[in-house]
Structures are given as structure tokens and as C-alpha cells.
């Protein structure tokens, strides 16, 4: 598999970090790709069958290699800030599948206690930063998380902030990345360039040929890589991590990919109108999962049986979590007014 370097799609090679991956690692990566795929399928299915009645499902079908490849080389104490299309990342970074499903179903034991939906969750103890709907905002918030590390002398903790290519047009993306670049914060911006922002093609969002070129405006390395090649993603990420941990500042990695389904579950019909069907079909052929499987088999290290297609235990595990969530209790109505203020202030003594 080929890897490419800053701003050059077919240029110099970066280090083939993936060569040091063990068979065990490769198997785990394979399983994670499938996890992401099956997670998506299960929720689409639940939505279609009316078992999930509220909220939208933003599919990551076709983009799995990005989530797997960018999280695999992370340390446990690194940070991530996933957004709408990155649900599997929550699980890869340690959240329990049950709590994620409770979030989707708006249940009392969800991380947001049913207050917010879908991907707007996090867990600071696991280094997962919460997002809002407003795209681009997390890039700026990331700077604060990293500044706090600087205050504590923890210069080596990295934050991986995900964003769509469309959201790179927002003001907060610019202010955040500019701040990080000025202060050489260890921020890695992973641009999931799936070619469309909802219905809008990337040419109407980004004026440069690659999204990676945005990096030039901040004087930071920008990679434009094949986002459907999990090992290429892994390699670029390892490079970026070295750079960031060394105190050299942010990195932008554009992962070129494609959103195989609609923007969200309600969008399936339209998404085959505002995008050429031939284009969709072409990208279906570049599906990262069969591609990785073929590669693994080609190495001669794996038998067909070692690479179940799909691994059925994963689907079962996901299904169990869904059943758990569906049966979990709804939040009590009055809890809607809890957590608006926190009155546990650190006041030592109080004189009026």
C-alpha cells in the first residue's frame, strides 16, 4: 500500500510505520473496521424498522478506515474530539457500547442523561471531548484542552480533532487552527474528505485542489492521503503523532474518502439524485474493508477463516447493546432541569 507525503497525492513516501504492526494488530484493525461497519448497519436497520424513533443516523459507511487508522496508534492518555460521523471512535476510545447506545436512544443512563443526542457526548476521564452541532467549533475548543496540558507540563498529549471537509470553511476552524499553529499545540486535525457536505460538493467549500493545502496557510504539515486505505491512514497518523509530540505543532491530515450513503438516514433517496450514481458505484468498489482483507490475504499471513467476513460475534455484541438500550429506562421528566448549573463551587470561605 502506498503512502504519500505533505500536499503530494502520489509523491514521496512517509515511513511505513505499519510494517511494525504484529499479526495481532492487523487482526484487531480488521475487526475494528468491521465493528464500525456493523455498528452503522445495526443503527440504520433499527431506524428503518422503527425501533429507533428519534434523531438521525449519520452513516460512516465507507469511511471506517479513517476512524480505525487514526485511533489505533494513539496512547491511552491522548484526546479525541469526534463529530457526527465518528460514532465508532467513542467505542475505540473506551466508552462502553451500552452507554453509546443509550445515548442514541436518549436513555437515562446515557452520558448526556438523554439530554443531547447522537455524537454530542464525551467522557473527559477517557480524553473524549464533547462536540456540539455547530461544525468547526471543536477545532477551537481543542486548543483549550491542549493549553491545559501545557499548563500542567504535559506537552506530549495529543488531541485528534475530526472534521468534515465542509466544516473547514467555518470561522471557528480557522481561529482554532491558527491559534494552535501560533502556539505549536499538538493538535492533529483529521479532515474526513468524503467529497460532500450534505449535498454540496467539495469544490464549493474548498478553493484549493486538495483540502490539505489549507495547512500551508498555517505553516503546518498537510497530508492528503487515501482515506480508504487503513494502513496509509495509520502511517500518516504515526508521522503526525511524532511531529506533534515533538512539540513541532499541529498537523492536518486530509483523508480522501466517500460517504457511501446519504448525509443521514432520511437522505437516502436525495443522495442518489444530487450525486451521480456512477460515482457512488465507483466508490463502492473502493470499500476499505474488502480492500484491507484482500491485502491481508495477499501477505500470506492469514487464512480465509482467520478473516471472517463479517465477524458474527461483533454483530451480536452490537445487537445486545441495542437491546440493552431499548430496555433501559427513560429519563425522568424532571431531570430535564438538572445539570443546568453546577453549584459545587470551590469557595473556601464566604463573607458577604
Amino acid at each position: 500500500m502506498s503512502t504519500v507525503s505533505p500536499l503530494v497525492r502520489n509523491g514521496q513516501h512517509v515511513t511505513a510505520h505499519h510494517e511494525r504492526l504484529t499479526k495481532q494488530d492487523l487482526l484487531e484493525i480488521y475487526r475494528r473496521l468491521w465493528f464500525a461497519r456493523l455498528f452503522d448497519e445495526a443503527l440504520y436497520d433499527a431506524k428503518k424498522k422503527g425501533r429507533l424513533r428519534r434523531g438521525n443516523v449519520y452513516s460512516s459507511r465507507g469511511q471506517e478506515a479513517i476512524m480505525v487508522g487514526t485511533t489505533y496508534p494513539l496512547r491511552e492518555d491522548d484526546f479525541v474530539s469526534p463529530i457526527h460521523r465518528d460514532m465508532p471512535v467513542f467505542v475505540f476510545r473506551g466508552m462502553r457500547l451500552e452507554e453509546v447506545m443509550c445515548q442514541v436512544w436518549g436513555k437515562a443512563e446515557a452520558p448526556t442523561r438523554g439530554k443531547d443526542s447522537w455524537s454530542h457526548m464525551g467522557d473527559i476521564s477517557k480524553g473524549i471531548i464533547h462536540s456540539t452541532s455547530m461544525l468547526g467549533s471543536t477545532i477551537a475548543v481543542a486548543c483549550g484542552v491542549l493549553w491545559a496540558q501545557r499548563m500542567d507540563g504535559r506537552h506530549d498529549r495529543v488531541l485528534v480533532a475530526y472534521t468534515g471537509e465542509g466544516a473547514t470553511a467555518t470561522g471557528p476552524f480557522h481561529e482554532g487552527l491558527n491559534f494552535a499553529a501560533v502556539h505549536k499545540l499538538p493538535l492533529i486535525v483529521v479532515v474526513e474528505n468524503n467529497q460532500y457536505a450534505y449535498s454540496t460538493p467539495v469544490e464549493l467549500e474548498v478553493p484549493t485542489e486538495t483540502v490539505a493545502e489549507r495547512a500551508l496557510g498555517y505553516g503546518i504539515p498537510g497530508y492528503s492521503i487515501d482515506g480508504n486505505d487503513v494502513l496509509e491512514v495509520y502511517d500518516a497518523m504515526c508521522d503526525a503523532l511524532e511531529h506533534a509530540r515533538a512539540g513541532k505543532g499541529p498537523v492536518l491530515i486530509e483523508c480522501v474518502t466517500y460517504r457511501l450513503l446519504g448525509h443521514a438516514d432520511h437522505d437516502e433517496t436525495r443522495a442518489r439524485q444530487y450525486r451521480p450514481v456512477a460515482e457512488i458505484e465507483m466508490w463502492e468498489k473502493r470499500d476499505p474493508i474488502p480492500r484491507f482483507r484482500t491485502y491481508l490475504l495477499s501477505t500470506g499471513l492469514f487464512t480465509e477463516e482467520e478473516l471472517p467476513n463479517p465477524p458474527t460475534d461483533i454483530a451480536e455484541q452490537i445487537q445486545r447493546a441495542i437491546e440493552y438500550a431499548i430496555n433501559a429506562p427513560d429519563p425522568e421528566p424532571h431531570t430535564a432541569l438538572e445539570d443546568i448549573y453546577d453549584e459545587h463551587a470551590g469557595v473556601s470561605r464566604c463573607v458577604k
Partner: protein
Amino acid sequence: MREVTFLEAIRLAMWEEMERDPNVFIIGEDIGRMGGAFGVTEGFLARFGPNRVIDAPISETAIIAVCVGAAAVGKRGIAEMQFIDFISYAFDQVVNVAATYLYRSGGKTPMPIVIRGPSGGYVGGSLYHSQQYEAWFFHVPGLKVVQPAFPDDAYGLMKAAIRDNNPVLFFEHKYLYRRIKGPIPDAHEDYIVRLGEARIRRYGNDITVITYGAMVHFALEAAQRLEREGISLEVIDLRTIKPLDMDTILESVRKTSRVLIVHEAPKTGGVGAEIAARIVEQAFEWLDAPIMRVAAKDSFVPFAEPLEKFVLPSVDDIVAAARELAAY
């Protein structure tokens, strides 16, 4: 007369204005080739072309700024916020650039802009797809704020907003888009609804209910229920929130002496506060009871159904408040 949905009424108003006036253009995310997230601008790109139907990047500030700059040189832009919640990204352009432009130009440069988008809750949209923060703009001079409840008003107000020479915020309650149908005048009638005029949607004698947007439908339902109990509600649909039609309000208050204000936004600091304050200022002697307000509880709009229901006002809430007021 044409029988159309609330959404279609808005669509037709924009369409007809764009047919009438080549200076009108629309800009927003996904409004062109897709016709908008809710389909309000379906067919516009094919009819009016890419110079007048702009599929913008995810750049709410630029979207509204484009309308500002174009208005400065004589165009009339309509900006769609995919959800009105995202106006927070363009807040400065609204309150500090568009609202003030006429003032800063010594009266020479009017700012005809319509900023529109789906607002409001009751559909499980959660914190960022349910907002109803019209009070922010209500507080700012130079802006007008509109929120219709019926197709005919949506149609007539949208036309008036497009022809108005000031920045108009047009809140379209997404709950009404396809649920509410009604007649609107034919295109050749050149019908508009003047900004700043409320409309009494139901006459009554005991309590004046002042409201707007989706809450008008709730109030009308409450009025129907209370009729059986012998409590007669007069329901004023403000339609335009800024400027506020105090004449219609005061006339009704003089008759009923009891006032209930209903809005979907959080109660504290909502538009209802100003209405109450003005009534007290201007009609203190006519009041036989405290002015009551039914509004969202002071919270964000949460996701889960039991939570959303708890926070947002309901027909039951209106009924209960009206009973209390009647009994005062």
C-alpha cells in the same frame, strides 16, 4: 385561492418575488442542487440559475455578509440558515453589521435582507435544532422579527419581508412546515401582509392570549377546550414580533382585563417579558389579574421525549394557566 402547506406558502412567496424582482437572490447551504434541507427552495436553482441561487460553503458569517454587501449596492438577499440555531455563527453580521448599516450610513444605505430558517422544537431536534431565540433580535434596534403561524400569513409576510428595506428575521417553525395546510391568495393578487400588524385569530371575552408561531395552534386548541368550560379566550397571533403591534394588544386587554402570554422560548428574558412590561406600563388600570406567561422552562431543549415534553409548553399548560387566570 390555493390550498398549500405552510412550507409551500413560504416557497411560493419567495418564488414569486424572485420572478417579480431580478434583484432578489437566495443564499444558503444546500439550497441549490438539493433544494434545501427541508426542500423550501426546491426547483429554484433550475429556474433562477446559480447567480441568484447560491449553494454556499458552511460559512454562516459569509452567507449573511454576502447579503449585507449585496444589499449595500441594491440587491435583496434571502439567507437560509439550515437551522436557525446556526445564526449564532453569524451573530455579529446580524446585530452589528446588518442591523446598523442604515444608521451608520446616515440613512443612505438601506439593508433589505431576509434571514430565514426552521426554528423550534417538538420534533426531537435536541439542543441545536430546536432553538427559538427570537428575543435576542427583538432586543436589537434596526431589526424586524417575524414568525407566522398559518400559510396565508407565512406567504404574505415573506413577500412583505422581501420588499422591506430592513433586515428581517423570519422564523419558520419546522413543526408547522408540513403539518399545517391552508389557503393562500393567487399569485396575481399581489397579496402581502404588512409587517407589524397582529391578527386576532379567535375572538373572545375573558382572557387575551398573546402568542405567535406554533403556539398559536396550541392556544387555539386550548381555547376550544376551554369554551366547553365557559372560558372564552381571545387569541392574538402577533405574526410580527418586532415591531410589536401594541394597539391590537391593548384593545383586547381593555376588553378582557386578563392577559396570558404564550411563547416557546425560555421564559426568562423572553419576548413575553416585554409584552407584560408594556401592558403594565400602558394599561395598568385595566388589569384585573396578574399577567401570566406560559413558556418553555428555563432550560435548553433536551433530546429524549419525556424531557423535551417537560421543558416545552403544552396545550395543557395553557389550559391550566387560563383556568387559574379566569378564577383570579
